[in-house]
């Protein structure tokens, strides 16, 4: 990574710049009011600038910056509350890049020709069964991604991971609190499985999904705290900026300290590979998404009445934070899984806490 640091930095700066242009307060309003135009414009900008190609290997037409690269992009997307199915699409492309059978699909995803969806509760999918031909689900599947996604990735009870093609006519978009992101329902029977991977691929996808949720939450936390601090500098009550009131100052400092800590945990997950990757990504998503919820909640309160209005963006961060918290299993379930991981890893003698120099 070290030699790529400059390039990645410059790339991310350009993503941030473009997003800042496209996503002002009014654009966020339009998204929250259900207007899909902003999302379309951002997606097409992303396509033309190649944002979706950052992580995948150079031989598949990407920049080869790996998980660290897409995490950096997702952090910028999260900071700007960018709408659209970036997260599941980046995750799917990154996984399929390592999957021999995934070639054509990767090309479509990287080019932004198609998007991908992932079960919203990825990790509790043992209710989906697959006998090699037939997909059976007790009810509809709740998916995270655009309802017109062409592909989805589905872990099934046997441990396998299926790449399926979706029929957009069979999906039902759901109304949800975070309108910058889509959740939809689909019947398992309507999916057309293309390729089946194994449990290592399922674990790999979970790792990337969690990593991106952590990165998105980190970007969101940083952005809403920065906005809140700016507001505290200009908003006056009792003849002084509210940021000069020590009780509020200390709350801002505590949030900032939480973010500093969360950022280090996210780094740890990004730097971890192989045996410990899943473990750290679970802890990272849990920690960072909770910091995001806390930060966005405090942001509303510290903004006072303004923070509670629809016109101001605070509530959008809060809704995003709560969605991230719920996606890919509850944080208590993730910590529980990490606890089991830890025992297994300690038993095999892996150095769980190694930090790459």
């Amino acid at each position, binding site marked *: 990574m070290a030699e790529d640091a400059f390039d990645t930095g410059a790339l991310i700066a350009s993503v941030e710049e473009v997003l800042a242009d496209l996503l002002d307060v009014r654009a966020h309003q339009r998204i929250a009011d259900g207007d899909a135009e902003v999302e379309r414009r951002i997606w097409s900008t992303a396509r033309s600038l190649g944002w979706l190609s950052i992580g995948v290997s150079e031989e598949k037409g990407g920049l080869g910056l790996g998980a660290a690269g897409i995490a950096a992009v997702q952090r910028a997307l999260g900071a700007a509350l960018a709408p659209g199915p970036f997260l599941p699409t980046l995750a799917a492309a990154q996984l399929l890049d390592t999957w021999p059978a995934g070639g054509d699909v990767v090309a479509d995803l990287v080019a932004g020709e198609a998007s991908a969806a992932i079960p919203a509760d990825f990790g509790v999918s043992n209710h989906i069964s697959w006998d090699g031909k037939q997909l059976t689900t007790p009810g509809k599947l709740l998916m995270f991604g655009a309802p017109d996604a062409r592909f989805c990735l589905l872990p099934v009870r046997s441990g396998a991971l299926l790449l399926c093609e979706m029929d957009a006519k069979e999906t039902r978009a759901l109304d949800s*609190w975070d309108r910058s992101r889509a959740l939809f329902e689909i019947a398992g029977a309507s999916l057309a499985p293309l390729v089946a991977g194994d449990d290592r691929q399922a674990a790999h996808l979970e790792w990337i999904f969690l990593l991106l949720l952590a990165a998105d939450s980190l970007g969101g936390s940083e952005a809403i705290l920065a906005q809140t601090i700016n507001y505290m500098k200009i908003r006056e009550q009792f003849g002084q900026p509210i940021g000069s009131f020590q009780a509020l100052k200390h709350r801002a400092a505590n949030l900032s300290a939480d973010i500093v800590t969360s950022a280090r945990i996210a780094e740890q997950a990004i730097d971890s590979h192989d045996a410990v990757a899943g473990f750290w990504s679970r802890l990272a998503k849990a920690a960072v998404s909770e910091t995001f919820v806390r930060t966005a909640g405090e942001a509303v309160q510290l903004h006072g009445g303004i923070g509670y209005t629809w016109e101001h963006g*605070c509530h959008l961060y809060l809704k995003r934070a*709560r969605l991230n918290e719920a996606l890919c*299993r509850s944080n*208590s379930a993730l910590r529980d899984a990490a606890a089991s991981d830890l025992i297994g890893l300690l038993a095999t003698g892996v150095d769980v806490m190694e930090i790459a120099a």
Partner: protein
Amino acid sequence: MIVEHKGDPVVFRAALREWLARVVPADWSRKMLRASSDEFVVFQRWWMEERRKVGMATPHWPAEFGGADLRLAHEIIIADEFARANAPPVTLYIVSLNHIPATLLQWGTQKQKDRYLPGVARGEIWCQGFSEPSAGSDLAALRTRAVRDGDNYIVNGQKIWSSYSMYADYCILLTRTDFQASKHRGISYFILDMRAPGVEVRPIRQANGHARFGEIFLTDVVIPAANLVGAENDGWTVAQSTLAAERGILSFERAERRGYAIAALVAEAAADPQSWWREPALRAEFMQIFAEAQASRRLARALLAEKGGGVPLSKMTAAYMKLTSTSLMQRIGDFLVRAHGISAQVDPTGEGTASEGMREYLQSFGETIAAGSNEIMRNLIAERDLGLPR
């Protein structure tokens, strides 16, 4: 007329309960979830009219102004029965029913009382014009100007966070009338007719998507001097009576409603083998919430007892009530959101508890910010109850 039974609390309670069982539509809360603003107002007006028919519109008011002279004990019975029956709260009439009598009975002229109080039972809606964009926590910094002009005042300025002001007939308005005096001393208190020329209201949409508040723009609005409540420049004192209205039966009823809601939550969760009730950590968290909800009910009773002349619990009981009950509401919302996982994220207007979580959670920020933010409550508690230096 239920109030006819007021002599016997047992009969009174029974009559009330019977009437509520008959009149409260079983599906009102479901319908209101998806109601437009207009439908909401129609429903609230209907409910006020139903209450009026049985003497339940303003039962705690003096008979002189259309009330039934009910005492605190009866108010408690009413709040309790309304909460138990999950009867619609009279959201649209909170100011009309509570703040107006609290203010006018003490400070209003006989003419003002005669003219404005009886209208409330007929469904007249009042709003409160106190906060301004630059005067929130620092309310006394308000800048809306009222300048005397013969028998009138000419008012210019802007008010914000005024609940349901877009539907209001009248507004109780704080303005600055002395521009030289120290900030608490130059304020006057008026009754404003919302249909007066120059009054414009813009609804403010909130984080939860609803528009409960309005922003009021006042441009050369003429208010007759007869509408001054209390003396000129004595508005800050008058406003204290208005604000005190929040702290009585209103918070009691809210605490009672929460008690029933909490009990319903357990019953629902315990009956569902897939629910959060099976997760020990969530269950333990909930039990602490359960205990605090009960503490809140007790605190509300202590507050009522204080108002009734009992020994004060502290110098700032109302501030404790506001701080703890709104914080608890936020924790309940937060709890439900986590307890219901991904299903709390969809269907914002859904009926189930899963959907309720985010609504309660988002709504709670309105409560922790409004009516004196919780930060202001902490200042009050620290300085006035604990005696810490300013």
